[in-house]
């Protein structure tokens, strides 16, 4: 009796689920036809920037709706390949195996080494940074600082900032000895701000902004070049990356217009407003 009831219930379940799914499909079909909709997914670093650009674009083109979804660079690439999104946000240059995609750069970003504001160490050479990150130097004393253990803050595997950092210092992930592994930029800044012995690396614009508003962090120069958005804009800062919108094949009309808008000087204020470096600045 009991079992039969469950069987009954289960027999009904697929039919019911099917009906719900059908209804959902029909309804979603209806709502999607209204107006032009552009879906952009990808890097959570770029998502706030593209969101504000999209807002500006929407207000200039009534009827157009742009859905920006965050979820990481690789999601952007995967979604564009599967056709789930027309544009993908990728916070690095495309790799050779991603030749099926075309990239349009909308802004530049640099990566700065940061330490706590109270850390007296003024600058570190490339060799010293490598020694710190590979665990050969474990105390600030060895690089001219106080007698305190170094807390090495590294980014999680796969993040484009990590890849850029590694390739600049010709390092390999297995060689790195980290004490704290972080995800987003803000986590890096908060970690270093709360730990006088820490060293980490984050987006230049964000770090610059945070340092200016009183967060206790300090940006270290890199290879003698001051870490600042100005230097990234000038193009002489050694650690910088493009923020890209990628697409596959010929983009649709709305996507094409959006790409043109996102690369135009009109969005410069929006780009600097999100602490990135606009393109034509250099």
């Amino acid at each position: 009796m009991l079992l039969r009831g469950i069987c009954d219930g289960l027999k009904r379940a697929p039919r019911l689920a099917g009906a719900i799914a059908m209804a959902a499909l029909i309804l979603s079909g209806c709502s999607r036809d209204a107006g032009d909709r552009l879906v952009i997914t990808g890097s959570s670093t770029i998502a706030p920037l593209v969101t504000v650009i999209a807002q500006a674009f929407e207000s200039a083109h009534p009827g157009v709706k742009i859905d920006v979804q965050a979820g990481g660079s690789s999601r952007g690439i995967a979604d564009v390949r599967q056709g789930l999104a027309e544009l993908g946000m990728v916070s690095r240059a495309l790799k050779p195996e991603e030749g099926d995609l075309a990239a349009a750069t909308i802004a530049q970003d640099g990566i700065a080494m940061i330490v706590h504001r109270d850390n007296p160490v003024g600058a570190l050479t490339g060799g010293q940074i490598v020694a710190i990150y590979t665990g050969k130097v474990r105390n600030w004393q060895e690089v001219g600082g106080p007698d305190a253990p170094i807390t090495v803050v590294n980014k999680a595997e796969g993040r484009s900032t990590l890849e850029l950092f590694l390739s600049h210092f010709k390092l390999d992930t297995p060689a790195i000895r980290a004490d704290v592994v972080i995800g987003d930029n803000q986590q890096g800044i908060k970690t270093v701000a709360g730990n006088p012995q820490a060293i980490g690396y984050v987006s230049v614009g964000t770090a610059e902004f945070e340092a200016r508003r009183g967060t206790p962090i300090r940006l270290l120069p890199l290879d003698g070049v001051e870490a600042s958005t100005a230097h990234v804009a000038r193009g002489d800062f050694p650690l910088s990356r493009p923020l890209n919108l990628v697409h596959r094949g010929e983009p649709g009309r709305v996507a094409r217009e959006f790409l043109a808008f996102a690369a135009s000087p009109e969005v410069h204020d929006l780009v600097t407003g999100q602490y990135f470096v606009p393109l034509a600045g250099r």
Partner: protein
Amino acid sequence: MILSPVNTSFRSPAADRALFRALAFSAGAVAAILALILLYLTLASASLLFVDAGLWQLRWQPSAGAYGLVAMLVGSVAVSLLALLIAVPPGLVLAVWGRFFAPPWVGGLYRGAMGLLASIPSVVYGFWGLVVLVPLLNRWAPPGASLLAAALVLALMILPILVLQADLALDEARRRHLAAAMALGASVSGTVRRVLLPTAAPQLVPAVLLQLGRALGETMAVLMVAGNVVQLPDAITAPIRTLTANIALEMAYASGEHQTALFASGWLLFVLVTLIMLGARAVARRAGEGRVDAH
């Protein structure tokens, strides 16, 4: 025959049969959701799970093709157990206090506050851990972000629901037995300890288990304070990475085999939770049989 809800006989007209079907359907739906999730996870991680891909080793270095999950498995279990160890004793004390010792309005207010704390997003807890707790611990044992920090934040997060559920179980026990025990002249504290807690235990165990599950599954808060270094912790103050933090940290940037390995992290967690629940249910059943049934 023992009286129980199931074998009370009711008149059984058509409405009851419809009700029964509806209820059986809901129960079936819950089981179906679970089956779907299991199916999905297994399919997504199949290509690594069923071959010898070295998931059972310590080294996790996706760029070098090493996908060992053992260190993170240990991390997940250690953090969750430590969190329970920290949260359960005060949780029980608080539930008992709120129900039996505090003035009624204070108890009610306290439960209200717990309900409120339960709905603070984990990001807020994690953020607090990152800017307050970790720097504090760092002064004592660098780098601060550690097993201990994660367990403390988790304990703080699971405490409210733990208190509320323990309170519910105690309340039921109270309704059944308090009057009788008090009539016999026992003190409140004695009654709580000797009668109510044992009576409520079979319901307390699932409540604690549910929180263990939640601790194992918590992502954002742990991610911010655990340090996320893949290693076997050699001290309570060493940084560790949990399976969930691993998924959240790397999923957004993973592709191919790396992504499959992350799904395998999820699968492993799923199996782990299943095993723990099975084991704990067996323990609870044995404990339930051992005690005198008071119904």
